[in-house]
Each structure stands twice: as C-alpha cells, then as structure tokens.
C-alpha cells in the first residue's frame, strides 16, 4: 500500500473530530502543540509506510500554500 488515502476513510468523522478537540481541552498552547507533535509521531509510526508518509508530508505542505494563496 503506497497510496495516500485522500478520500473519506473514517466511519464517524464527527466523532473523531470531537475526540481530537476533547484531548486538547484545557491545554495551554505549548501543551497542545506538544500533544500534536506526539500524535503525529504516533500516527507516523503506525502508518509505517515511508512512501505514504512522504506523500502526506507533501500534501500537508502543498495544502498550506494553496490556502495562503487563497488568502484564507
């Protein structure tokens, strides 16, 4: 599996989003940043496929540039 999934893959997107918000609740900005960093590392290890990870890094970096250009 070397394709990065960019179509819907979560059965309950609202549930995941709400869980993500919940673990950040009450945290300071530095605490939240640290949690996000740990989360990225945990997920990266779980994915384990370096091609997928490289595509995810690229997609994340590209999306930011598109958003910046759109002024959002």
């Amino acid at each position, binding site marked *: 599996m070397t394709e990065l999934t960019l179509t819907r893959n979560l059965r309950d997107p609202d549930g995941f989003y709400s869980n993500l918000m919940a673990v950040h609740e009450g945290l300071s900005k530095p605490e939240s*940043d*640290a949690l996000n*960093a*740990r989360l*990225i*590392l*945990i997920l990266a*290890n779980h994915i384990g496929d370096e091609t997928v990870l490289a595509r995810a890094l690229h997609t994340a970096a590209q999306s930011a540039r598109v958003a910046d250009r759109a002024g959002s």
Partner: protein
Amino acid sequence: MTKIFDRALYPYARHPDQDANAPVRHKVVIIGAGPVGLAAAIDLAQRGVPVLVLDENDRVSHGSRAICFAKRTLEILDRLGCGDVTTDTGVTWDHGRVFFGEREIFSFNLLPEDGHKRPAFINLQQYYIEQFLVERAQALAAEGAPLEIRGRNRVEAVGAHSDHVRLEIETPEGPYALHADWLIACDGANSPTRRMMGMDFVGRVFEDNFLIADVVMDADFPTERWFWFDPPFNRGQSALLHKQPDNVWRIDLQLGWDIDREAEKAPERVIPRLKAMLGEDVDFSLEWVSIYTFQCRRMERFRHGRVIFAGDAAHQVSPFGARGANSGLQDVDNLCWKLARVIAGQSPERLLDSYDWERVYGADENILNSTRSTEFITPKSETSRLFRDAVLDLAEHHAFARPMVNSGRLSVPCIYDDGPLNGPDCDALPPRTRPGAPAPDAPAPDAPLDNGWLLDQLGRGFTLLAIGADPPEGLHEIDPALTVLVTTRDKAPVLADRFAGPAPSALYLIRPDQHICARWSQASAADVASALARASGLKHGASHD
C-alpha cells in the same frame, strides 16, 4: 605525574637532507603525525614504500580529543600491528543511558554480535593511540622498514607540479627543501596544506559552543555512555559523560552560541558547572578543558594530482557519532594499498581516483549522519525543539520512539555501494557481504592459528575466499600475490553463515583493505581475473560522475 603528552617522542634531529645541495627526493611525504598520518606511514612502510612523516611538533597531542574508537578502526589497527595494545588499554563499553530533564527515559545495549575478534567500541584517549602508533612506527624503522618521522619540521610552502611536489620546511636550525613523488596531507581540520594550495573547504557552520572537560576522578559511575537532554544542571542544553582509562572521564556540555569563550574556559567557571553535574562532594581534577564549535564540511575532491588529503584535512564532522578519527583511519585503509600499487607500477594512477570516489562517499555519509544528530541534539527552531521533546517524551514509554532519539549515530564502516572498483554481485548471497562492504570478521577455527579470526588470515594483497567450493585453477598465474583461503560450512559455520547464508557455496574476492570487491556462487579463473583487473584499476568500470 608526567603525562605521555609532556614527552618528546620524536625530537628534532638534524638530517643530512638539510645539508644537501639540491632538494632530496622522497617517494612519499606525509604531513602531520596525528593518528591519520602515523597510520598512513605504517601502512605504506609495511608495504615496502619508503615514507617520511613531517610534523611541526615532536610529541603526541595534548588532551584526550578523539576518545571513541569503533570496531573497524581496531581491525585496521590489527592490520597495522597495534590492535592488541589499543584494545587492551581501552575501555570496552556497550551500554548507554539517555536522560531527559530529571528522568532516565531509557537505556540501551549496543548488543554487539558474537563471533568478532574486536568489540563494537572502545574508549581511549587520542594520545594513547598516537603513542601506540609512534611506537609501532619506530619499531618498524628499527627492523629496517623505510619509515622516518622528523619532529619540529614545519612545512611552510607546498609547490604542486605534474611529476613531484616541492616542500619548503622550517626547522629549529633553519629552512630546507624536499621533493616528494607523492604528498599525503594529514594536517588536521585547519590543514595548512589545504590553505597553502588555496583549496575550498565549504560546508555548514553550527552556531553552538561545547565545553569539553576531561576530569580525573575516583567515581563509581558505570562504564556506560550517559547522555542528557535538557538536564537540571545544564538547562536547555545537552550533556555527555563517558569513561576513559586511568579514571579519566569525558564530560561534554553544550553551552549555546552567545557566550564568552575565554571566560567559560576558566576553572572558576568550569568547576561549578562540573560540581552541579557530578555532585558537590565528588573529588576530581581537570586534565584538559577545551571549548569547541564545529562545522560539517569537506573538500570537493580529496586527490589533487600528487597531493592527497586524508582525515580531518579532507573532511570535518560534528563529534556526535565518533566519525572523525574513525573515518580518518578508513581513509588511510582505503588509500595506502592503492598508492603502494601505483608506486610499484602494478596499477595506473587512476586507481587513486577511486580513493576520491569512495572516501568522498564515506565523508558524505558521515556528514549526513552527524548533521542529523546535531539537529536533534541542538534544535534551532521552536518547532524542531517541539518535535525533539515529543520524541523524548514518547521514548520513555514507547519502544517505537527510541530509534528516533539521536544522541549520535555511532560510526559504522562505509559500504561502497556502486563503487568504481566493485565487480560482480550474486543475489543468492547475504546482503551484508555485498560488493563494497567491509568483510565481516568471523571465527576461522581451521585457520593456521588455532581459534583464529578471518580478518587475521586475509592477505596484504588481494584474497580469494572460497566456502564450500574449490577455488578455480590457475589463480597463481593471474596474481602471484593472491592469498587463497578455502573453508567449508562444517569447519567454519559462523563464517559460512555470514558469507554464504543459505547458499551451498560462495567465492569472494577481497581487497587489501578488507572490503569485498566481487562474489560468486561459482567462479572461473577468468571471472576472478576480470574482477581483479577492475579492482586494481586496470580495467574501466561503469563511469562514475
């Protein structure tokens, strides 16, 4: 107590060359009697090449400097005749601990593989290595080997010509000049030779200062490598504690960029720092204190006609990973057999270009690894520190994060994949012994020596190793100097496992520097002859640009 570095080991003595009417011509001149220059001199002299070492000093270097010597270095020192004394004097270690803030987050064992003559690492002060190399060089000279070290001979000018190099040398009794067929510059990171020849030395500067203190103390810390990220005694920075022989301990403290370097070196600043780390009631004395910054950089090419650069003169890395002196010794290992063949007329000069290709490749690998370690140890942005700390926090609880903790990726020998001297590979044989790799050691119980080791059996020239197969007929006609070793799985099971894996038979052609150049499951004399020609530079391989 008089330390070894307080004694003149090769004092200045007037030489007839200084009174000659015209510059005397030498085969090989080496500038610098550090570990790299001395090892090169020994290697060449053992091959019968006359060699002269010029050093601006007359004694081993002051302070511990390089302390961590890898297995491959010990194997090279075995070949040079001082592996035993180095290993026996050094401290063998394989455990490490990593601390983050107040907590120990994990410990590791290098888990060295059994069935090797030498351990994964020893710690030993650089002045010991230099002393052993000087003693070995002097013993060789006493036996009549063509090796000479001239102390307090400082090279002031280098003139590179197409067929020789001219050297202007300053001594306590005035100047003289020499000519050399070949010059090897082993004069360190600030190489005067490189500067005199106007060569670039570009790379990346890391804006950080580190305090090195070698302290003598009777402490009951175990023989382990301890590394701290953000310790309470050096907030926001890193620290390292490592044991050397004679109760000397290496302490390395990151200090940051904006400091007063002279003030930080003063004992009244150093001692409180060390007490904060070691405890108020630990008695210690300072043997050596230094503050260093570092760069990761290399010359674009290491060979410039008849001038060849080796060691720190050619490339420089951060100290994390013990890749300085260890890679310098690998330079020597790679260069000397090639230069000896060229001087003897057995190989064309272009064989030396493979030194350039292989050791530039090695330097790039070392620079990559040490740059990555440096980025992890000394994060330079808020985000890099965020992720670095996240890795450390996770490492305390989860195994997956521990391999990401980078407190230095310790030196392993370079594998010259796709190197210009590599010959045929054989897919049926194990990956670790592919062409370009250093031959792994293995017990060789049927060797002429009882319970011997493979690496000790390899020849001064090329070696053909045959496992479970007869070597082809007629090898002696191809290369009279070829060493042929024949064994079987029954006699040497570990060796067969490392070199043949599950395959029933294997034949390996091994270079004089113990790197593998070609391998087959079955081979004819013509196959071996072809690979030998390629590895000797007699036949062009694929181009490498």
